[in-house]
C-alpha cells in the first residue's frame, strides 16, 4: 500500500515533471518558430532591398520602357513644282476609316453594317478580316481610304453604333499632271524591306518614299524630318497622356526647271505615236524644260492603289511604259551622229567647207561594200549637203581617213558615252565604242568597217535622247560643255556651276559650218526634213534627222520591193531628230526618238517642229528660276 502510494506519488511527480518538460519543449520550439519567422522576414527585406536598391535603376528603366511610348510623327512630304511654281506633286488630304478589332464587338458584323453607309465591297470586307487575323488586336486597320467628305460625315454620325471605328485624315501624294510627269517626277510607294535603313521614320506604317524620278532622286530633301511624341500608355497600349512632343519638319519644296505646260504639250504630242520620247532643254544653261516618255502611266494609281489588271498591262506592254526612255532608252544615234563625224573631220583637218566627195550610192572598202541610204547616190556632196541630204558615203570616206579614235574623242566631248550627272536616278550612259572598248568587250580587235558603220551612228554606238539633246546644245551654243539639269541646287553643288559652262576645244568657224548644214536639213529644198519647216523666220528651226536600223532589210527583200513600213512594228526602224530653235540665236534644243517610227523625217521631225514651236511660244527661258 505504502509502496503503491509511493509509486503513485512518483508517477505523479514524473508526470508533473514531464508536463514542465513539455512546457519547456514548447518554449524552445516556439523560439525556433519565432526565429524562423524573423529569418524569413529578413529574407523578404533583403530581397526587397536587392530589387529596389541594387537593381532599382534597371527596373526603373524597364518600368519607363513599359509606359513610355515614343510615337513618331510623320513629316509632310515637300511639294514639287515647275519653274513657274505650278505644282507637279502635292499632298492631298485623304480621309480614311479605321477600326480597332479588339474594340469591335463583332468585326464582320460591324463591317457589314458599315457597308450600308458607305460603298464597301465584299472583297474589302474580306481583306480587312484577313488583316485582322494577322496583326495584334489593338492595331487599327484601314477599312477604306479616299473617302469623300460626305462619307466621313455619314460615318461620324453613326460612330456610336460602331465601337472601335474611327476616321482620320492622312496625306496622299498626288500628281496633278498625271501621265505627263509620270517619268520625270516619278512616284512614291511603300517602303520595302531593303529600303528600311537608318531613318526610323521609314518604319512608320503607311510611310511612302520616292520610287522613281525626282521623287526618288531628291527623296531625302523631300522627306523632311520626323517629329516625336512621348506618350504614356497603359498596358493595353492606349494613350493616357502626352509627355513631350517635338513637331516634325516638313520636307523641302522642290522646284524643277520644267515647264509643266510644255511638258504636258510634249507628252500629248508624243502620245500620237505608239512609243516615243523627247527632251527639250536650254542650249545655253542646260535647264531641262520638258522630258517626256510615251506611253506613260498615271502615277496617281501608284499612290491610290493600282488595279492588278492595269499593272499587268503596264508590265506586258512592248512599248515599256514604265521606262523613262528619254534618259534610260539607249538608241543608235543613226544619222544624227553625222554631227559628231562632221565635227571630227573639221577638227582634224580632213575636211573643210569646200571638200567634196562623190557619192555613187555605194562605198567600197577592200572587198566590202557600204551602201548609202539613197540608191544611185547623191553625186558630188560637200559638208553642208552631206548633212542636208544625210549622205552616208561622205562620212564613210571621212571615217576611213580619221579613224575611230578621233570620232570617239569628239563624241565624248559632245556629251555622249557617259552619264551626264543628270537629276534622275534612271539615267543610262549610252556607249561610244573605240578600239580599247572592243578589246575589253569581246577581246577582238577593231575592224576598219566598224569605223565606217560608226560614222553614220550605227554599229555599237548608243545614246540616250538626253545625250543627243546635249550634243546638239554644245554645237549650237557656241561650243560650251553644257550639262542638263532640273534643280538649281543640284546644279550648283554637283556641277560646281559658276555661271558659265566651260568652253570646249572647238573653233567657232567649224561650229558655224555644221550649223549651216543643220539649217539646210529643214530649211533647204534638198533637206531631209524640209517638210517640217516653220515658215516664220523668227521661229524657224534647224536640226538633223536620223533613222536607226533595228533590222537590216535583206537584199532579197529589197529586191522584192519590201519597204520598212511593211514590216511588223517591232522590226521597223527608229526615227530620230535633234533640233534647235530659233535659227539666229539658238535657245531651245530638242531630241526626239520615235521607236519604230520608220524614218526621222517622217515621224520624228514633225514632232520636233511642234514642240520647238510651242517652246518658243511659251518661252520658259524668259523666267529666271528661283532656287
Amino acid at each position: 500500500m505504502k509502496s503503491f502510494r509511493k509509486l503513485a506519488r512518483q508517477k505523479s511527480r514524473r508526470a508533473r515533471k514531464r508536463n514542465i518538460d513539455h512546457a519547456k519543449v514548447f518554449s524552445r520550439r516556439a523560439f525556433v518558430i519565432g526565429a524562423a519567422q524573423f529569418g524569413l522576414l529578413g529574407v523578404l527585406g533583403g530581397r526587397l532591398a536587392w530589387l529596389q536598391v541594387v537593381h532599382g535603376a534597371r527596373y526603373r528603366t524597364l518600368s519607363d520602357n513599359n509606359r513610355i511610348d515614343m510615337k513618331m510623327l510623320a513629316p509632310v512630304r515637300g511639294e514639287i513644282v515647275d519653274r513657274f511654281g505650278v505644282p507637279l506633286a502635292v499632298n492631298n488630304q485623304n480621309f480614311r476609316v479605321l477600326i480597332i478589332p479588339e474594340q469591335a464587338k463583332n468585326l464582320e458584323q460591324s463591317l457589314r453594317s458599315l457597308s450600308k453607309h458607305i460603298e464597301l465591297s465584299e472583297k474589302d470586307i474580306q481583306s480587312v478580316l484577313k488583316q485582322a487575323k494577322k496583326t495584334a488586336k489593338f492595331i487599327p486597320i484601314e477599312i477604306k481610304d479616299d473617302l469623300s467628305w460626305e462619307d466621313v460625315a455619314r460615318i461620324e454620325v453613326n460612330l456610336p453604333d460602331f465601337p472601335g471605328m474611327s476616321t482620320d485624315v492622312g496625306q496622299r501624294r498626288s500628281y496633278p499632271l498625271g501621265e505627263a510627269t509620270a517619268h520625270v517626277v516619278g512616284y512614291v510607294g511603300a517602303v520595302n524591306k531593303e529600303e528600311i535603313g537608318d531613318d526610323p521614320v521609314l518604319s512608320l506604317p503607311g510611310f511612302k518614299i520616292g520610287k522613281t524620278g525626282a521623287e526618288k532622286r531628291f527623296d531625302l530633301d523631300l522627306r523632311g524630318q520626323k517629329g516625336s511624341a512621348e506618350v504614356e500608355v497603359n498596358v493595353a497600349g492606349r494613350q493616357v497622356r502626352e509627355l513631350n512632343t517635338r513637331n516634325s519638319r516638313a520636307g523641302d519644296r522642290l522646284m524643277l526647271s520644267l515647264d509643266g505646260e510644255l511638258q504636258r504639250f510634249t507628252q500629248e504630242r508624243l502620245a500620237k505615236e505608239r512609243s516615243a520620247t523627247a527632251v527639250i532643254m536650254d542650249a545655253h544653261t542646260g535647264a531641262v524644260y520638258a522630258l517626256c516618255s510615251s506611253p506613260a502611266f498615271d502615277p496617281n494609281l501608284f499612290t491610290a492603289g493600282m488595279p492588278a489588271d492595269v499593272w499587268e498591262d503596264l508590265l506586258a506592254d512592248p512599248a515599256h511604259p514604265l521606262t523613262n526612255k528619254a534618259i534610260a532608252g539607249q538608241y543608235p544615234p543613226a544619222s544624227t551622229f553625222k554631227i559628231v563625224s562632221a565635227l571630227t573631220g573639221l577638227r582634224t583637218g580632213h575636211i573643210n567647207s569646200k571638200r567634196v566627195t562623190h557619192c555613187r550610192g555605194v562605198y567600197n572598202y577592200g572587198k566590202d561594200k557600204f551602201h548609202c541610204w539613197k540608191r544611185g547616190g547623191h553625186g558630188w556632196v560637200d559638208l553642208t549637203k552631206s548633212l542636208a541630204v544625210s549622205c552616208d558615203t561622205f562620212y564613210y570616206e571621212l571615217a576611213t581617213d580619221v579613224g575611230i579614235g578621233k570620232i570617239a574623242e569628239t563624241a565624248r566631248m559632245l556629251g555622249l558615252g557617259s552619264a551626264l550627272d543628270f537629276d534622275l536616278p534612271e539615267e543610262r550612259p549610252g556607249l561610244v565604242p573605240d578600239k580599247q572598248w572592243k578589246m575589253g568587250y569581246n577581246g577582238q580587235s577593231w575592224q576598219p568597217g566598224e569605223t565606217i558603220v560608226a560614222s553614220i551612228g550605227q554599229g555599237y554606238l548608243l545614246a540616250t535622247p538626253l545625250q543627243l539633246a546635249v550634243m546638239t546644245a554644245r554645237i549650237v551654243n557656241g561650243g560650251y560643255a553644257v550639262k542638263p539639269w532640273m534643280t538649281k541646287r543640284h546644279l550648283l553643288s554637283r556641277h560646281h556651276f559658276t555661271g558659265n559652262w566651260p568652253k570646249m576645244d572647238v573653233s567657232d568657224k567649224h561650229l558655224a559650218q555644221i550649223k549651216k548644214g543643220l539649217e539646210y536639213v529643214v530649211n533647204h529644198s534638198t533637206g531631209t526634213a524640209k517638210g517640217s519647216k516653220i515658215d516664220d523666220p523668227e521661229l524657224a528651226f534647224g536640226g538633223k534627222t536620223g533613222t536607226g536600223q533595228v533590222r537590216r532589210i535583206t537584199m532579197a527583200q529589197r529586191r522584192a520591193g519590201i519597204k520598212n513600213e511593211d514590216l511588223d512594228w517591232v522590226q521597223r526602224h527608229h526615227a530620230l531628230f535633234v533640233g534647235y530653235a530659233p535659227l539666229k540665236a539658238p535657245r531651245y534644243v530638242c531630241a526626239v526618238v520615235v521607236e519604230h517610227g520608220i524614218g526621222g523625217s517622217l515621224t520624228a521631225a514633225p514632232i520636233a517642229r511642234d514642240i520647238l514651236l510651242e517652246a518658243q511660244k511659251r518661252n520658259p527661258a524668259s523666267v529666271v528660276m528661283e532656287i
Partner: protein
Amino acid sequence: MSRPISIQSDHNPLHKLQQINWGLVILICTIASIGFAALYSAAGGNFDPWASRQIARFFVGVIAMFIVALIDIKWWFRLTWPAYFGGLFLLVIVEVMGHVGMGAQRWIDLGFMKLQPSEMMKIAVVMALARYFNAATIDDMRRIYFLIIPALIILAPVALVMLQPDLGTALMIVMAGAAMFFMAGASIWLFIGAGAAVTAAIPIAWQFIMHDYQKQRVRTFLNPESDPLGAGYHITQSKIALGSGGVQGRGFLEGTQARLNFLPEKETDFIFTLWAEEQGLIGGVLLLVLFGLVFIYGLRIALRSRHNYGRYLALGLCVNFSLYVFINIAMVMGLIPVVGAPLPMISYGGTSMLAALISFGLMMSVNIHYDSKVTR
C-alpha cells in the same frame, strides 16, 4: 492536473476589455490602414470600388474580433469540433456546387460577401490540432499511432481543397499543421522523414496530381523571362514595379506600373507590389516590421498561456498568419511560384480579412483567458 495558483476568471466584460492587447489592436488598425491606402491608390485615387468596401468589412471584422476575444477560451475549446466539421461540411458544399455550377468554385455567396470556406478551414484545423494536442504528453507525441488522428485532421480538408483545385491553400494547411506537430513536441525525425518523403513524392505529384496550370506556374517561376508575355508576365511586371520603386518609392498614387495596369491583380494578390512601388524600400520594410510586431504579439501570447490549448492555438494562428505573409510577399518578389495567396489585412477580399481578424480575436481570447482551466 491542478495548478498551483488559480485566479478566478473575471467575467466582467469591462475588465476583460481592459485586458485586450490594445497594442495589437493599434497594430492591426495600422496595417489595415495601409491596406486602405493601397486600395485607394489601386483605384486611381478613389475609395470606390475597393477601399470603401474594405473599410466597411474591416469594421464588421473588428467587432467580430472583439466578440471572439471576449468569449472565454473554454467555449472555443468546446466549439472546436463543431467548427472543424462545420468547415469540412462547407468545403464539401462548395465542391458539390462547383460540380453542379460552372467550373471550379471556391466560395459561397452569402449576399454581403463571398465566403471562402477554405480560409475558415485553416483556423478550424489549427483549433482542432490544438485541442487534440492539448492533453498530449511528450510520450504521446512520440507514438506514431497517436499522430494518425491529427494527420487525418490535416489531410481531410487538404484533400477537399486540392479538389477545388487550390494547391496553395492545401500546402498552407499542411505547413501550418506541420508547425503544430512541431510545437506540440513531435520528434524531429518525423519532420526529417516527412521531408524525405515529400522530396521523393515531388516527381509523382508532378506527373499525376498537379494540374497543367500549376505546372506552368512552377516552370514560369523557374524561368520567368522564358515567357514574358504569357504566364511569366505577372512576375516580371511585379519585379519591375518593385524595383522601380527604389528607396523612396514613386510616391502615393504615382506608381506607373500599377496605375497603368501593367501590374496584374494589383488590388488582390499583388497589392504588396503596389505599396512598395509607391512607397519604396522604406514603405515596404515598414510593412514587414509591422507584420514582425504582429508575430511577436502572437509569440508572447502563446508563451504567456498556461494551457496547451491556448499555446498551440495562439502560436498556430500566428504561424498561419505569417505563412500568408511569407507566401504572398515571396511570390510577388519572384522567390516562389505564383500561388494565388492574398496578403492578409491588405489585399482586397472579405474572407481573408475576416479570417485574419477572427484569428486575432482568438489570439486575444487566449491572452485574456491565459489562465482558464481548459479541460477535456
